[in-house]
């Protein structure tokens, strides 16, 4: 096992159910130490990928490696290094949070003072220190926080979270995201979701999965810069209506949107646009207030990459 091995590496991963392709050749590399967002619409294959990585399901073809070890052969060796929170975690309702954490630790062979210390630290992290009621009486948010805490009981090298915030209210979401943010730099976090703002907030790298395929993988800033360069915002003192019609006819523009005196142009040739826009504005005899590359959100990137067919 190499120290430099990616935390997760998927090569041509396929999973079929009858004639349906849940995963259709997924290639992915998650660097160790990253907080990695695994984005995709519902049904894209995120949960299936995580089920294969955790040994809950078997791949039809391809390879899934965790820290260089093939999960199909590894069994407990891999599971001992990971922490996992499923999308709908099931707890033993008759246990308290402390009892569940102690039980989870015992499955990893964590005992004695180490277990005591970790249980107290994780109860604190999850905000459940003073809670003595049984898990069956917990809110969804409390269960999710306990879910993250139990996934950390073995001090995992890789923490995998499947849609950890999808069913939570804003406060519950914030609590869970704060927990994830606090783990940055301490462990690799692989975090599946369809909530784009969550990824923007906590992740440094992202992959977008659609219809069982990874359509893009990159650091978030690179991704936004790459797609942001294709938008230009032009603010003028007047004549925006005429300019909108003129730009819409230009071969370097694919779309133009106007809001008062501001035009947002989707460009296919940035160099041509940079030359043509000031010329057009001057030719129109109006003042140029602002010309800049548009701010693009991850949502814009996501919609552009996977939204076109929907």
């Amino acid at each position, binding site marked *: 096992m190499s120290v430099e091995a990616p935390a997760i590496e998927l090569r041509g991963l396929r999973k079929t159910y009858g004639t349906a392709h849940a995963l259709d050749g997924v290639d992915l590399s998650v660097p160790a130490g990253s907080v990695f967002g695994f984005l995709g619409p519902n049904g894209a294959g995120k949960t299936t990928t995580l089920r294969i990585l955790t040994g*809950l399901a078997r791949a039809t073809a391809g390879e899934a490696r965790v820290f260089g070890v093939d999960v199909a052969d590894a069994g407990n060796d891999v*599971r001992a290094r990971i922490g996992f929170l499923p999308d709908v*975690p*099931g*707890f*033993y309702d008759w246990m308290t949070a402390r009892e569940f954490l102690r039980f989870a630790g*015992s*499955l990893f062979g964590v005992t004695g003072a180490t277990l005591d210390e970790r249980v107290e630290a994780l109860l604190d992290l999850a905000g459940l220190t003073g809670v003595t009621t049984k898990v069956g009486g917990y809110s969804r948010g409390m269960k999710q926080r306990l879910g993250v805490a139990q996934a950390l009981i073995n001090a995992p090298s890789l923490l995998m979270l499947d849609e950890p915030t999808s069913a939570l209210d804003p406060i519950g979401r914030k609590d869970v995201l704060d927990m994830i943010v606090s783990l940055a730099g301490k462990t690799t976090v692989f975090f599946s979701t369809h909530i784009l703002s969550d990824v923007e907030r906590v992740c440094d790298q992202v992959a977008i999965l659609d219809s069982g395929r990874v359509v893009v993988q990159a650091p978030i800033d690179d991704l936004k810069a790459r797609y942001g360069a294709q938008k230009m915002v032009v603010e003028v003192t007047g004549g925006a209506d005429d300019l909108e019609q003129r730009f819409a006819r230009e071969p370097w523009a694919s779309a133009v949107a106007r809001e008062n005196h501001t035009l947002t142009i989707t460009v296919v040739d940035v160099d041509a646009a940079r030359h043509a826009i000031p010329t057009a504005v001057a030719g129109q005899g109006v003042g140029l207030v602002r010309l800049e590359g548009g701010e693009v959100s991850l949502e814009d990137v996501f919609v552009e990459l996977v939204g076109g067919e929907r």
Partner: protein
Amino acid sequence: MRGFGAFLGKELREIVRTWRIWVLPGIVLFFALTGPPLAKVTPELMKSFVASQPGVVFQLPEPTYIDAYAAWIKNLSQMMVFAVIIIFGGLVTSETKSGTAVLVLTKPLSRPAFVLAKFSGALILLIGSIAAGVLATWAVTKVTFGVAPIRLLVETTGTWLAFGVLLLGVMTLVSAWQSSQAGAAGLGIGVWFVLTLLTLWEPAVHYSPAGLAGAANAVLARTGADLMWPLVTGAVMVGVCVAAAVGVFSRREL
């Protein structure tokens, strides 16, 4: 087998701290505490009923401890069989359905250890419940009839317990295979029905686990029935069922 001890510990604590501690032991103790008094008063009840029917003469021998033991075995052979099938139909399915299996099996708990711990926990519950029932039956029979040979009661109940463990093995397999408790219970009832049906065929009674289905009554009646083959083949069938449960569950996607 990593995680077996920790998970078995969870199973035992779960038995003590949930409804499980009340249902099976409760049923057993109900039969144990009510069987001997009912055996004692049943002839009197029958006589008083028949006395109201003109022209009918009804004679019954005085009830003895044998009647109390027979009532205990009858209850085990009928009601307890269904209780075992229904309760243990959820042995594995309850964990797969609630999502708890996913949470524990993504930790270093092997699937064989998971299944074997579930079987072991249920076995301890079954044996413990029956042992408590034997003690209660013996005590109440002693009080009711003044005589209660413990050895006969233990031998008779032990023979039924062999059948109960056989059913537990079957339920472990079908619960590991099926996705719902109802489906597992349905299959369990089917297996019980087949075993009961096989008791009509003499070779099956002598040489197969089916011989355990009615063996407790034979022991109580001291017919001298040879139970070696039913016990041996029954033990083999339990082993095969549990091994098959491990195999089925290990291949199952969750």
